[in-house]
């Protein structure tokens, strides 16, 4: 057992050496009023890797995700302490608008704007003041291709985004996010409202996107976490119980709680 652990520790060090981290989170505490929702979270999110956040409902994984692009700022009396650095820069010091152009987000419910597919994708760039027709056209095509939606919608870019199927809508939301050319994409249970076929398409897409983007995904589905992620962080009751490479986390969980959760023996 001891030898095994040592090997894992060795591997972790290797990971640290190989991968450069894009997010460095240190001692983050989050309070909703007086209620503490996150307790002393510290972890690194590595560049061009998929990090899955798993845990039971209400454990704070989505809350933590929203810390990364400061969406929690929108909630009254929500207070975050500690340090979150994006590329070495403290995000609490960055302008939220600039931060969110670098850190995109995809939500649980596919929620395209009630406008055309084209306008949906151009929404973000236009908000940043980009109005050059040729550049927008290029951006739309590139984003849709990256989101594996181009072939399905290239002939009907003027149709309303809401006319698409649920899975297509979610991919449109991903494309909309990609149009901002972000460094990191946060996904908050992106497949929980979709059927298995649409889910597998999104999972394939995540595999593809990994090459160019860093992805943090919250999921309820442990199989999904094993399928798509390179790293897994297990949250429980506002604390991060364990963070490890997905392979090791699911084969050799260090903590008893993690083991219980993975095996379904969860009280």
């Amino acid at each position, binding site marked *: 057992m001891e030898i095994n652990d040592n090997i894992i520790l060795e591997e972790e060090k290797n990971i640290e050496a190989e991968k450069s981290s894009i997010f460095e989170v240190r001692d983050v505490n989050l309070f909703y009023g007086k209620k503490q929702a996150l307790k002393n979270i510290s972890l690194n999110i590595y560049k061009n890797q998929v990090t899955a956040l798993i845990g039971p409902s209400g454990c704070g994984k989505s809350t933590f995700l929203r810390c990364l692009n400061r969406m929690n700022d929108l909630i009254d009396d929500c207070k975050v302490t500690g340090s979150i650095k994006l590329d070495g820069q403290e995000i609490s010091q960055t302008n939220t608008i600039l931060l969110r152009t670098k850190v995109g987000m995809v939500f649980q419910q596919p929620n395209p704007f009630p406008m055309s597919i084209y306008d949906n994708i151009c929404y973000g760039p236009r908000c940043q003041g980009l109005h050059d027709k040729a550049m927008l056209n290029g951006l739309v095509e590139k984003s849709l291709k990256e989101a594996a939606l181009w072939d399905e919608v290239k002939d009907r870019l003027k149709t*309303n985004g809401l006319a698409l199927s649920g899975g297509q809508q979610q991919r449109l939301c991903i494309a909309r996010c990609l149009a901002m050319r972000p460094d990191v994409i946060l996904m908050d249970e992106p497949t929980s409202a979709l059927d298995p076929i649409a889910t597998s398409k999104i999972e394939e897409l995540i595999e593809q996107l990994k090459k160019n983007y860093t992805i943090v995904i919250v999921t309820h589905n442990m199989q999904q976490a094993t399928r798509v992620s390179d790293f897994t962080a297990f949250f429980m009751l506002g604390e991060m119980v364990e963070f490890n490479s997905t392979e090791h986390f699911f084969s050799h969980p260090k903590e008893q709680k993690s083991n219980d959760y993975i095996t379904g023996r969860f009280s």
Partner: protein
Amino acid sequence: MKRNSDQENKLPLKRRIKDILASGSTYLFSSFSIIALVALIIFIFSQGWSTLSSEFITGNYNSNSINLVTSNEIAPTENTFEYKPAEDEYFSANWGLAFMNSTDNEGLKTTIISYVDNNANINNWVDATTGKPNTLIKGCTITSVILWTTSEASTASVIVPTMSDAKSVCSAFEKCSYVLNINLATGGQGIRGSLITTLYMILITMAVALPLGIGGAIYLGIYAKNNKITKILRTLIDMITGIPSIIFGLVGGLIFLPLTSGSTSIIAGSLTMACMILPIIIKSTEESLKTIPHGMALSSLALGASQTQTTFRVLLPNALPGILTSALLGIGRVIGESAALIYTAGTAIMDYIVPTQGSASLAVHIWYLMSGEHQNFAASCGVAIIILAIILALSILIKIISYRINKTQKGK
């Protein structure tokens, strides 16, 4: 055993009676409200339908009056003119004029000149203002005539046909020796001026109230923190909705009259109306902002849009059907309001509308028709039909626009 199962199949009598009473009363009350509504519409149409004519809707309110005076006193020659009067016409063979009972645009009884012989003396009488003979006499309403009779006791008599009828006017003409003066009128009693005033008021009121109301709703619904001040503000807005319109009229008269032209004006009336409908627009715009899925705003913000961009590019376009409905409610209020306008836009019915001058709207027109000595139900109901028609047309228009917006937004 059998009896027992029978009893189990039926609800207890007491409960059944209660159910029947409760459901029966809801049917009764709802049927009452429908009957009241239908009765109102039937009453208005039965009373007002006869008044409606294109002349009534497009005509001036003030009639065009003609005052004819005899150039030299001409004695009538006996029975020189020949004309075969129709059944309801009365022909004066001495003067070559036929008279007929008629009604004006408001449905009031009048006497008109229905026929003028080509050689009739009246063709030579001159207009008091122009000094030339007036040839457009046929069809004119007689307002008053001054006749001179020499045959009996040399008396001058003033005939006002509205007090009598065509037959007595005709016989008075037959008896008299001279006509000194005749007052005629054409047109009049139309509601075109009030109609245009109403449209002006809708335009000005909406131009003021919509931006203010939408702005207020955006502040309350999106930017305002959920604290005590916001709560007090909301309560105040609710309370404004309950203030009687006559009080708005008084305050509007005190504040807006000195601010605008000093006397009653359409602008002052519109500003008062804008204050009145602000809470309606704020409330229903805020409601429609609330119904937009929260995820829509969040995903816009997550794409790096600012709160302002989110508000104007995502939230407002989605709230548009609700805003239009609130505008319709506001317009309905403007069209139907009379009390608040009496002190601010005045009660004078005008034909040529200038926004800086006072003029009665359609609702005030009704008030004016009903406030005189002779209450004119028919004409009032005629105006009421016009008001109902405008509201119906607006409702349909806004339904169509909302449907179009929904269709393009939902992509169906």
